[in-house]
């Protein structure tokens, strides 16, 4: 379908697709098998200026919005979601600085991220604080001109490879969620270490590790925004990131559909290509409908975000939950259409099926997405009375 892209958006999409098909696709099986971080591909993306897609122009980026971000992540995910996640995690680390950082913080960190010389990460989750983010136990104690951080962040994408880590920690335990603050911690700050590389079901090209903070003393100007803004910063960051997760889902699902449909044209059973068998054709038709419906929703939400609305938590959650549930279903169906072949690691759809699962879990589980949507609905219908 034609989504009426501007010439600039078309150029961005073409460039990202080119990298997905020329660089990512040939490497994805190897990266997955070896659980290898895609340094080379991130270098290509940086060379193409894409590391700066969402970073404002005055900090060396392209200054583009949510919609362009969605086009970019969709295209990269047609190649590999593991690679796309490694790339996009840097944006997740950049958003808090872009949204709430001081001018000095922006000038210090954003140009490096935009050029792709600096990778970033965002660290909220802890062992006892997953969906219940308010249960975090990491602390940041003010001590003169410094903060001293202690705690362990779990399952952090890009931990250990990111130079800049945004850490959510409690500055006032008594205040609960209102006592959380966001800090910039460098990879090489004394007292920072990283846990073992997690062994994951999918997105194995991406690195997931613990960030361990032991008496990490950082200057007080590494606080983002003000004390107590940690959760607002987190929510705004995740609201912006969620259509990106939806975009990854569309890219993955489109790619799974492409594989399954091409296979169905080649594979003969009962004297005909299995594409001609109605049971198969209907599955492919359903997959195509779901992919297109998700794309339309994710694009619409991203374009809405670019109109700068005051609150878009509900819409962002909708785009994430719908598209990622869709991607899981489409990936499962792609394996089914391809039968025994689909189950083999010689074909890419089993990897897509493994990769799809995380999209329903990270950046807020799909159950939490429904909570957010439900809460917003409840408010809307209360007002209407």
């Amino acid at each position, binding site marked *: 379908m034609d989504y009426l892209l501007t*010439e*600039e958006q078309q*150029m*961005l999409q073409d*460039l990202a697709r*080119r*990298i997905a098909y*020329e*660089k990512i696709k040939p490497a994805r099986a190897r990266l997955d098998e070896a659980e290898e971080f895609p340094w080379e591909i991130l270098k*290509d993306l940086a*060379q*193409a*200026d*894409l590391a700066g897609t969402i970073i404002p122009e005055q900090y060396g980026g*392209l200054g583009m919005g949510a919609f362009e971000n969605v086009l970019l992540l969709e295209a990269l995910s047609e190649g590999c979601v593991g690679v796309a996640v490694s790339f996009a995690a840097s944006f997740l680390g950049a958003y808090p600085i872009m949204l709430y950082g001081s001018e000095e913080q922006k000038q210090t960190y954003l140009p490096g991220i935009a050029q792709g010389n600096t990778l970033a990460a965002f660290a909220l989750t802890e062992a006892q604080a997953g969906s219940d983010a308010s249960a975090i136990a990491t602390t940041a104690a003010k001590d003169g001109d410094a903060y001293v951080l202690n705690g362990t962040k779990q399952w952090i994408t890009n931990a250990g490879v990111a130079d800049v880590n945004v850490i959510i920690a409690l500055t006032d335990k008594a205040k609960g969620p209102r006592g959380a603050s966001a800090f910039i911690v460098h990879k090489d700050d004394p007292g920072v270490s990283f846990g073992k590389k997690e062994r994951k079901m999918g997105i194995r090209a991406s690195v997931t590790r613990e960030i361990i903070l032991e008496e990490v003393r950082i200057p007080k100007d590494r606080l983002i925004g003000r004390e107590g803004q940690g959760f607002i910063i987190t929510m705004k960051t995740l609201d912006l990131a969620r259509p990106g997760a939806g975009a990854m889902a569309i890219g993955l699902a489109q790619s799974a559909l492409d594989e399954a449909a091409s296979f169905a044209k080649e594979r003969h059973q009962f004297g005909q290509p299995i594409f001609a068998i109605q049971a198969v054709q209907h599955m492919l038709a359903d997959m195509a409908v779901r992919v297109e419906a998700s794309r339309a929703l994710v694009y619409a939400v991203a374009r809405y975000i670019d109109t700068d609305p005051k609150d878009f938590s509900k819409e962002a959650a909708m785009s994430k939950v719908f598209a990622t549930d869709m991607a899981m279903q489409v990936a499962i169906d792609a394996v089914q259409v391809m039968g025994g072949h689909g189950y083999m690691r010689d074909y890419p759809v089993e990897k897509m099926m493994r990769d799809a699962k995380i999209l329903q879990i990270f950046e807020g589980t799909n159950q939490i997405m429904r909570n957010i949507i439900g809460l917003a609905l409840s408010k809307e219908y209360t007002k209407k009375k």
Partner: protein
Amino acid sequence: MLKIIVCIKQVPETDKVRLDPETHTLIREGVQAIINPFDLYALEAGLRLKEAQGGQVTLLTMGPPQAEAALREALGYGADEARLLSDRAFAGADTWATALTLAQAVRKLGGADLIFTGKQAIDGDTAQVGPMLATILGIPYVAWARKLTWAGDGVLEVERLLDHGYDALRVRLPAVVSVVKEINEPRVPSFKAKMQAKKAVIPTWTLADLELDPHEVGLAGSFTQVVRVFPPPARGESEIWRGDPQELAARLWARLKELGRR
């Protein structure tokens, strides 16, 4: 500051090329035009040398007006400027007439320290324009470079890929160097460069601009014409001889005479 020129050619996409059985020429209708893939390695070599030593990369191509698209695309990789050599009088040029036209453009640009070309174009596959360009300009030609090392003081060390290994040589600039794909991995285009390329002004130089005689260029200036196109026969066995150059030369001469008698 190094003045680097990269010659590129717009060609039909390889896997879609068909031959007209009557005229033996390429059927170009409906086939997408791309930059000759080998030329992207030449461009990458030029860009890397520029980044390492400082300088400017100018793109040069001769072709119909639509060849401007190839220059614009190549600018998207980060080349500084481009010139299109286009005139009805240039049409039908063989390799000599093409090289002569390019050489005149190089002179008009004030010469260059280095001129890069791909090892050959995938449509004609002649690999002639590079060496002819060097001949006309009266500067050295180094074919099939697979590695370049800047030795300083206007000297480049080049490894040339051969059938049975490589040889290494030093060349004093200016020179024309053709590259093979083993030399590098071309970068991906950059978004910012592509945006600039879209707006870039690409001057077109015509016969008049180049102050050439119409009889020297295009079909009129061509010594050759295509009579028939066919796949080349498979290569025969090769032999490697070692020994004293004089002795080898004598042996080679004897062998050539023997082969010529057959």
